[in-house]
């Protein structure tokens, strides 16, 4: 029962609370199957543990090393660089194990066998990734360093997949059979997400400016947009498909302009539907947030109303509008998956095909790139918002 705190060693071991959570997830994952081995694409398979994939001492040694890397990430008293390197080493190690295990299992079995990532692997990847991001956020890196981290991450991920090292993992096998389809889906997905965002900006931004000018319109317009936001997407398709179908059939020019009951047109309209509220309301919030004396001074010095808007109020509202662009883009990258349901293309195509065939790997082929795209787009826009907020320092005079 000694409570003599002064006798503690000088370098005390402190833990990072989120780091501990991530480490616990990771450690637990070590005792869950990392991959599922399936004799063919559809049947449920058998779990494979690290210790069964690698026999004897080798397996336990790998488990020990991975565990050590998890613990390193959770130790707050270590230098951040060490913790990041540990997390990245764990991340890379996990991917190497996945590729290696998949290749050796496939080599030993009949054609059509599949090796799918299982819960253990996902949890390990997530735990290392979260640990790395957690430390990275605490570093408060400069803007330029954060751009470089983003670019570096994208390049490494692309290189890993391009190298073919993971070619024997089930998801990549699905990809191998559908390369052309995948590339087309990627393009369509970008068109859906960015296209709907672009249209939402073209329509929503002027509406936001109008609401700022005409106070009486705010309540009815925002009310209507709010209502639109609450319509479930499936219900929306239920309404749109017959309406647009009818228009395409009966209005002479409509079909030529692309109006159709199914396909990319209703998908874009649906995404636009959910994008308007964030764009309009953030434009309005940004404009009303501009300090009133700034607008007052601008008018008092002889700017016309249009000049006050264009030279003072809109530039000052821009960071908030950019926040809306971020929200809408990330939201629409995710939401664009539903386009697959009505033949609108995009990664959703694989998701709904996979659901129909009960082929989990195919669902993943649609889901994983969607998540990656959303993460990259979200981070990019975060960095853009920060750049706009912190560095309007030098612009040439007049």
């Amino acid at each position, binding site marked *: 029962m000694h409570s003599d705190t002064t006798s503690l060693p000088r370098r005390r071991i402190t833990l990072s609370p989120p780091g501990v959570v991530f480490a616990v997830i990771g450690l637990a994952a070590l005792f869950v199957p990392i991959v599922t081995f399936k004799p063919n694409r559809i049947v449920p398979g058998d779990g494979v543990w690290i210790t069964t994939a690698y026999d004897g001492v080798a397996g336990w040694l790998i488990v020990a090393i991975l565990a050590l890397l998890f613990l390193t990430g959770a130790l707050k008293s270590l230098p951040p660089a060490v913790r990041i390197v540990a997390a990245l080493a764990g991340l890379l190690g996990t991917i190497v194990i996945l590729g290696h295990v998949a290749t050796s299992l496939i080599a030993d079995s009949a054609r059509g066998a599949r090796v799918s990532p299982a819960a253990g692997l996902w949890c390990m990847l997530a735990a290392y990734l979260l640990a790395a991001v957690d430390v990275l956020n605490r570093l408060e890196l400069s803007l330029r360093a954060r751009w470089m981290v983003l670019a570096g991450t994208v390049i490494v991920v692309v290189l890993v997949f391009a190298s073919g090292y993971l070619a024997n993992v089930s998801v990549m096998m699905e990809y191998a059979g559908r390369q052309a389809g995948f590339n087309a889906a990627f393009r369509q997905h970008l068109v859906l997400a960015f296209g709907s965002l672009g249209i939402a900006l073209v329509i929503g931004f002027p509406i936001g400016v109008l609401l700022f000018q005409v106070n009486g319109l705010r309540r009815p317009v925002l009310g209507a947009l709010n209502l639109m936001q609450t319509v479930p997407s499936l219900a929306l398709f239920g309404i749109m498909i017959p309406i647009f179908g009818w228009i395409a059939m009966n209005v002479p020019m409509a079909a030529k302009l692309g109006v159709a009951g199914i396909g990319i047109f209703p998908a874009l309209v649906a995404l636009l539907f959910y994008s308007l509220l964030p764009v309009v309301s953030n434009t309005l919030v940004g404009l009303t947030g501009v300090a009133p*004396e700034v607008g*007052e001074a601008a008018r*008092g010095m*002889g700017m016309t109303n249009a000049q006050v808007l264009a030279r003072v109020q809109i530039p*000052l509202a821009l960071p908030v509008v950019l926040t809306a662009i971020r929200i809408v883009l990330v939201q629409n990258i995710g939401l664009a998956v539903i386009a697959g349901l009505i033949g609108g293309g995009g990664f959703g195509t694989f998701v709904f095909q996979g659901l129909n065939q009960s082929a989990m790997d195919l669902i993943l082929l649609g889901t994983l790139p969607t998540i990656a795209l959303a993460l990259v787009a979200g981070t990019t826009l975060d960095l853009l918002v920060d750049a706009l907020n912190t560095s309007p320092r030098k612009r040439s*005079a007049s």
Partner: protein
Amino acid sequence: MIQIENLTKRYGSTEVVRGVSLRVRQGEIAALVGTSGSGKTTLLRMINRLVEPTEGRVLIDGEDASGIQPHLLRRRIGYAIQGHGLFPHRTVGQNIATVPHLLNWSNREIDARVDELLHLFQLDPAQFRDRMPHELSGGQQQRVGVARALAARPEVLLMDEPFGALDPVIRAKAQADLLELQKKLGTTLVIVTHDMEEAIALGDHIAVMDKGRLLQYGTPKDLLTQPADDFVESLIGSAERPFRLLSLTTVADLAEQGEATGATIARTTNLRDALAECLWRGVDVLPLDGGGVVTLNALRTSGRGLAETQGEVN
């Protein structure tokens, strides 16, 4: 010159400014004083038509302001407000260049004018031109705000509580700087303030407003010695009256022949400070720089606003 004739502003049935007439001569400073809600700011904003008058008119150098397009009128009139209203996304130089830019001056002219004004306001152009407003202190921001208002060499400058956001020490310095600058440029200046002290320090004429009415328009001395009514008197404050009266004059005006011991005081010292000095030193006579003295008796007489009416002679 600014002539305000029977100016009235009504919002619905409430009159915020009621039939105000006054005249500010070329190169003079007029201070509009009143409590909040007195209509002083509305009156000011009717001069550059940020608020459109309901009745009456404003003549600037004889020209009816209602005949000029509002934004063109405002480019001819400087305007500075409390909290300066600098554009946070523009550099100091760009802020100052706002009106010259609107008037399509050439870039060379604008750059030269920006540097000239920064010099005038004791801000080194090389150091301050490219800074953002948030990188300046409150006093510096205020000076940039006034520099911006003066950029296109307006004949008339309107200021709405321009020193309201400054702390007392910087505020006194800013007032002194403004006075000096105004003398140098000869700008006609209308300044809104709720602070009678500031109005007396700056104004050649003071307009006291209450509930939309102009109660009195006169020199600081008029206001102190002959307040039009109880409200004006209360705004001046009976306890402060003699000292404010003393603060209007310098000791040079009271200099007499004579000798006195002790440190001399500057001839530009105002009578209030001289009286304070007498009391502090416990003397009846103060020696002045360059010879002569000022006596406590003379100071006492000058502070007596009611002397003539009571027929009292020292």
